[in-house]
């Protein structure tokens, strides 16, 4: 009973923290993007636009909720929730500091990867239920792309797992006690795995340059085209939560999670900072590149990224299993 109360409380806190963080990450991205285009970005609502996310959320809440007449109502209404739940659920296994997390599972990373791949169900429900040709085309592309990129993504994420020798996220973090032992600084393997992780992450999150499922010039807003008001907000929230969760995972796998100078209670802040660095890297890429074609996306996945990560994974396995003589950084 007590443990149930504990889990509920921690879960509640984490969930609300995520929602608050995700709303403010949109502001961060908008500010960052604006600077990359020599603009200032949101400025008027609150000092330096700090209240802009709240204004956006209020606006979305007050918008009319439109359901298309020919939509499959049940699927259409359920889709944002089915989409949002996995995106929120993946935060459950993330430890934010030693012992601070909702559920530090033994197979934490497996849970993370499995649940994060489930968002495609909500996505497809939304596109199908909208009964809109653009939405349907969009989710068809999304399914195509996410299935193609889940494999390289998992392979890239498995490299730190092999190096640390554990599927438990807190163990992986504990295997990188200081900067020199961060897995991104592991010679050759670490850097290649990080690049593969970022590329596969971009594709799995449908971010530019892999954003064919919401290619504005072809598909308007993709699978979200028929959504409005709070349902639209839920989908946006889910997308950003997914990106943030994957950034956190990237920071944990490659950048040493909560390790950093200062007392131990600064750990979560270091973790947040590193995750934001990964997020800003993704945003930087987003505002630097143009969208690539469907066939190019699939070619990159199946012809380049998948064999490359597979070879990388095998090389890592050899290095990790090398008796005694494993290179120590």
């Amino acid at each position, binding site marked *: 009973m007590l443990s149930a109360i504990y889990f509920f409380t921690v879960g509640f806190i984490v969930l609300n923290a995520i929602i608050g963080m995700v709303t403010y990450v949109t502001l961060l991205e908008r500010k*960052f993007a604006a600077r990359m285009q020599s603009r200032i970005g949101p400025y008027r609502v609150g000092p330096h636009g700090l209240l802009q996310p709240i204004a956006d959320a209020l606006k979305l809440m007050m918008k009319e909720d439109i359901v298309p007449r020919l939509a499959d109502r049940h699927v259409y209404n359920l889709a944002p929730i089915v989409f949002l739940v996995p995106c929120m659920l993946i935060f459950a296994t993330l430890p934010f500091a030693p012992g601070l997390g909702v559920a530090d599972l033994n197979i934490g990373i497996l849970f993370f990867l499995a649940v994060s791949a489930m968002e495609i169900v909500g996505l497809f429900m939304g596109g199908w239920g909208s009964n809109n040709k653009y939405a349907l085309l969009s989710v068809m592309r999304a399914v195509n792309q996410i299935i193609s990129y889940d494999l390289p993504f998992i392979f890239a994420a498995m490299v730190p797992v092999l190096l640390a020798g554990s599927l438990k996220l807190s163990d992986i973090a504990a295997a990188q006690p200081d900067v020199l032992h961060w897995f991104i600084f592991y010679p050759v393997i670490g850097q290649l795995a990080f690049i593969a992780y970022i590329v596969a992450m971009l594709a799995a999150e449908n971010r530019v340059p892999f954003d064919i499922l919401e290619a504005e010039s072809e598909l308007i807003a993709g699978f979200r085209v028929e959504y409005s008001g709070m349902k639209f907000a839920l989908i946006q929230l889910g997308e950003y939560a997914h990106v943030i969760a994957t950034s956190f995972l990237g920071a944990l796998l490659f950048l040493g999670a909560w390790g950093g100078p200062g007392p131990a209670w600064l750990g979560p802040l270091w973790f947040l900072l590193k995750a934001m660095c990964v997020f800003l890297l993704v945003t930087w890429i987003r505002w630097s590149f143009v969208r690539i074609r469907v066939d190019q996306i699939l070619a990159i996945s199946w012809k380049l990224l998948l064999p490359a990560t597979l070879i990388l994974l095998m090389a890592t396995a050899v290095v990790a299993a090398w008796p005694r003589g494993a290179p120590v950084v």
Partner: protein
Amino acid sequence: MSRRLGESFWGDLGDLLGAVRRAMGVTLVNFIRKPVTLHYPEVKRVYPDRFRGVLALTYDKETGEENCIGCRLCEYICPPQVIKVEMLKAEKRNFAKVFTLELYACEFCELCVQVCPTDAIIMMKSFDMSTSDRRELLLDKDRLHQIGLQFEPSWATGNLLRDMQTPPKAPKAAAAEPAAKAAGPGPKPGGAAE
């Protein structure tokens, strides 16, 4: 580039990495640079001297009289015909009895400023006349005088503009001296000796 796409794997990879570096470099440079945006109502950009903004009527600096003599030259030259003037005959000089300007149809061509013989109509360094009611942009004489006092005037006036366009008065005397100076250090060594 002589190599075609798909011929060489490592060549393509090199091209890709170069493209990535260049693309991300552009955005990074922009990120470091100061934003070009100005917070408009609080901070105003410095307008150039020949800015063509809102039209206004002026007063004479010394006597304080209206400069406009109601000659209707601006009315005749105005391409969209937004100026209407009626002359008021008086003893010493004439005045404009009515002067209306439909700013909503004005095309800011500056022709009225160019023809004005008394520098009465000029342009201001301002464009923020936005309003929710179109009728407020039908400017009468009083409003035009008020705008003239409200904003900073542009450089151009009728007399200055005409001076710029008139051919040089005495081409012999005025043009010979600078020409000789310009030719001095030039290829003709004998020219400067005179």
